[in-house]
């Protein structure tokens, strides 16, 4: 299904990473931090303050929700809602367009002859 693009501003890097981490599976807070650090190869690590600040906003916006509590788990798990998945897809499309444009410009640019 094609993501529905509306006039939303670009996501912040923290928001993007949180949504991306949750796109794979439901996770608790520390799981999100570890997942982001893993796939960014340690270049980006979300702090707990930043994480929960963004999670609260995402939950208020209906993009992330509480997941059903798992058996033998006393931690709170978070899940991506359909709207959250759509917002992530829109952002990925936007980034793809930027990359495409950047590649095209880099190909066009020739070093100046001195």
């Amino acid at each position, binding site marked *: 299904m094609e993501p529905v693009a509306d006039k939303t501003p670009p996501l912040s890097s923290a*928001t993007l990473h949180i949504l991306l981490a949750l796109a794979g599976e439901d996770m608790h807070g520390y799981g999100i931090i570890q997942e982001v650090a893993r796939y960014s190869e340690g270049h980006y690590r979300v702090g707990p*303050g*930043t994480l929960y*600040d963004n999670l609260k906003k995402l939950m208020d916006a209906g*993009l992330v929700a509480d997941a059903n509590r798992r058996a033998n788990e006393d931690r709170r798990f978070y899940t991506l809602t359909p709207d959250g998945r759509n*917002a992530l897809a829109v952002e990925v499309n936007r980034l793809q367009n930027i990359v495409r444009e950047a590649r095209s410009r880099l190909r066009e640019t020739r070093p100046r002859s001195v």
Partner: protein
Amino acid sequence: MTRITLRSVYQLILRIHPASFRDEFAEEMLWIFDEECRQGRARRVFLDGVWSLVRQRCVFQRAPKPVTAGIGLIISDDGIGAARLTQAGLLISVLIAGFLLVLSPKSASSLSLRWPESVLHCTLTLQSPPPVLPLRVHRLR
């Protein structure tokens, strides 16, 4: 500085967070703090906690309900008052000074303060227009 002291200060920071945020997330934040401390990332998490406090107290709590379309990225466009900024600056200064004081002199001298990326991001998303400087054209004679 012992981990217990740092943990106590971090708990204090969590206690100063707005009640709605604290009730919902403080326990998990403290758990993550403990986990990160074990891996030697206490300072970074500590500073992140301070910044989280500033954001919660001075920016987002002040704004009305965030616009859904903005995915929480839009801060109210009425700006931040000077009093709030001063309050935030003082709070940060006191917390960082306290943090540095309880550090041993050796570690204090080698401490490098690296603000998390969120600091930069929030600064950029304040959406306050840059001051317009009067343009003067000097005619060459």
